[in-house]
């Protein structure tokens, strides 16, 4: 629709076409990402979600944008990530013989039997992408907390959005549970420290997403940018 000309009988269109008004009007609009319907933004109460009136997709939420809490949860998640990867994840024993695995062992088990392509992919889904998302979030939030911005904030933000569907820690956790049930009949199973740390990590990741989704993260970034552009702006 590059350079498309809207017809003139619609009030919203007319306002949008009114030259200099464009920027201020546009910032008050939101387009449904699933059906493209334009909506005017309305104030909603904290915890509420605005939905598209045509297709019911979520448009935006009003999350309490508390950077402090988001940073706290983010740091806790990062620590849990380290803990979860430092201890045994699961352990089984059958007639005196025992074997334990850490989270990354699953990746090695795939690569050692020639399924290296799958091993690389799983390494990304289970470890690398979730880690990049966590670190990326802190890379944006920590400087915001200090009223600063590091270079590449936009790039990191887009990276987080892009990686969202490919981060599969919670699926791995359920995979572990299914594997345990499969083995329960034939072997003694022990859950390692890592298992609980990993479960907690998943809870923290869910809480973090609940507190600050991609859209409100962008709101935080753009709010800080407005601060930079203010006349006082020594922060640039």
């Amino acid at each position: 629709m590059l350079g498309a000309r809207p017809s003139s009988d619609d009030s919203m269109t007319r306002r949008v076409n009114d030259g200099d008004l464009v920027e201020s009007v546009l910032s008050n609009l939101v387009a449904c990402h699933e059906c493209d319907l334009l909506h005017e933004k309305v104030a909603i109460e904290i915890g509420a979600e605005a939905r598209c009136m045509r297709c019911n997709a979520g448009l935006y939420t009003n999350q309490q944008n508390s950077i402090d809490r988001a940073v706290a949860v983010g740091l806790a998640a990062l620590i849990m990530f380290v803990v979860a990867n430092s201890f045994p994840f699961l352990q089984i024993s059958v007639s005196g013989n025992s074997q334990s695995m850490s989270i990354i062992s699953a990746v090695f088990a795939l690569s050692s039997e020639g399924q290296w392509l799958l091993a690389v992919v799983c390494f990304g889904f289970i470890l690398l992408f979730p880690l990049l998302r966590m670190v990326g979030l802190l890379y944006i939030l920590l400087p915001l907390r200090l009223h600063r911005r590091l270079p590449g904030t936009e790039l990191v933000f887009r990276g987080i959005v892009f990686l969202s569907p490919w981060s599969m820690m919670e699926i791995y956790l359920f995979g572990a549970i299914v594997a345990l049930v499969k083995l329960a009949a034939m072997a003694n199973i022990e859950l390692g420290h890592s298992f609980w740390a990993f479960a907690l990590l998943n809870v923290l990741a869910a809480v973090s997403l609940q507190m600050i989704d991609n859209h409100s993260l962008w709101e935080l970034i753009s709010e800080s940018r407005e601060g930079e552009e203010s006349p006082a702006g020594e922060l640039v």
Partner: protein
Amino acid sequence: MRTAAECGLVACPACGTITRLSVERFEVPPKCQLCFARLHSRKPMSIQKSWAWLVAGVLAYIPANVYPIMYTTVFGNSEPNTIVGGFFVLWEMKSYPIAIVVFVASVVVPVLKFVAVSYLLISIQRGFKHSRYDRTRLFRLTEFIGRWSMIDVFVVAILAALVQIGSVAQIAPGLGATAFGLTVIFTMLSALALDSRLIWDGDQDLASVNRPGHISGHAKRGNNLYANDGTPLA
């Protein structure tokens, strides 16, 4: 009410910022002025890319079922396990819940996804006008549920890492696991390439949405609706 495209506007896919597309203001391809993501009113080549990934997914699903996803060795006897075979073993062991989980994740979800994405693509190409809302919901379901099929691959990987008990029992992953992983990835890419806004393009029922005095955006929490000026509706 109009769509962004009808007003010559485009929403940034990453940050949501609305921009007016005009030839003179933007380089090609246009980028979001705030977060620098590539802007496009509709995902470029959406239908073609989605079909291509879907076909790749279907093709990968054949070796995923033909080749064993893992080899189980118990006291020296090695046995290949296919996806469907694993389900039957669990069923005979009377582990019905797990058998059902395995069957749903590895057979029902992929096949339903093939059918659902094909139907959505055909409906867009043929310009179906009916049940746009239901098709959008189908799209959402496909998008949400697709990644959970990876659970099968993870189970194999975890079993292979854990069951390495010398001469007693060993489990090794097979080629079928890689093929199945590729099926999941390809169908996820197919759903990501599919632009759901195409389902709604050409929708002429906007008049009903644009009743005078009707809310032009509403917020939901439980049963609370809010009008444009923030006053609660019934």
